[in-house]
């Protein structure tokens, strides 16, 4: 088992650029209070999709999303205290998502909260062929790697589905926008 943990985990097989998860990140499972480890290749996605119900909204959305995917890999670690993982290791992972294959779509860094989130996409023939999210927080590290065709419209709706409430950002924006004052004649 220890040997298996030490071996490099490889994301995104079958012809795509392989992303190697550093062994030091895999070993975080021993230190973390909570670990989420999901590895679903094309076969398992096919099996899972058969059991998704059209009657359930979340599952119906998932079924549409999954139809073009080749793999979903998630590693999420939650720690009881800060400083349990090395920023250098996370940077080494981020460095693998480089052009020309990958491009960074969003990069958010907050000194206040210590959060650093990057969203990468891989494009092929004008379509999105991969998505990666690396979210590093002081007590939590999450790595998501999705390979396969993703519909941009589904991607847009992905935030706010599966039990995660959509934030009413549009209404909030309208409330804060000052009303235009009529010009005096």
């Amino acid at each position, binding site marked *: 088992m220890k040997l298996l943990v030490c071996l490099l985990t490889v994301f995104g097989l079958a012809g795509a650029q392989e992303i190697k998860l550093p062994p030091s990140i895999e070993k975080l499972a021993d230190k973390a209070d909570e670990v*989420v480890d*999901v590895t*679903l290749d094309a076969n*398992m*996605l096919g*099996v*899972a*999709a*058969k*059991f*998704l119900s059209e009657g359930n909204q*979340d*599952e119906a959305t*998932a079924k549409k*999303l*999954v139809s073009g995917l080749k793999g*979903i890999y*998630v590693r*999420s670690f939650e720690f009881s205290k800060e400083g349990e993982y090395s920023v250098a290791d996370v940077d080494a992972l981020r460095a693998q998502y480089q052009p020309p294959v990958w491009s960074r779509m*969003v990069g*958010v860094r*907050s000194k206040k909260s210590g*959060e650093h*989130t990057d*969203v990468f996409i891989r494009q092929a023939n004008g379509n999105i062929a991969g*998505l990666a*999210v690396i*979210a590093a927080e002081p007590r939590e590290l*999450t790595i*998501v790697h*999705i390979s396969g065709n993703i519909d941009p419209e589904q991607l847009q709706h*992905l*935030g*706010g*589905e*599966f*039990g*995660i409430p*959509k*934030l009413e*950002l549009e209404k909030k*924006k309208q409330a*804060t926008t000052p009303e235009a004052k009529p010009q005096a004649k």
Partner: protein
Amino acid sequence: MSRLEDDLRQALSRQEPSDGFADRVLARVQAEPPRVSLWERLSGLFRMPALRLATVAALCMVLAIGIGFEQQRRSREQGEAAKQKLMLALRITSSKLQTARTAVHSISEE
């Protein structure tokens, strides 16, 4: 009392059987068919090839059906487990994308 004793002695005294009694008993024993136990009756049935074949076929069918049910049950379990993992993965992805989106909106509002 003595009369009672005499009557009892007479009633329980040894009586000699009639002539030919032993021969009659032996003849009757030989005439009766031998008793066959249940096991011997059942095993006798299996001497018939057709019945043997039918029994083996029935057992094979029961085994095949049992294995089929077990495989189906395992497939269903695996499928449900895969589905749960998929939904969890999508929830986590959704949550992190939402966080990034919120941060971008907050920055653009400032």
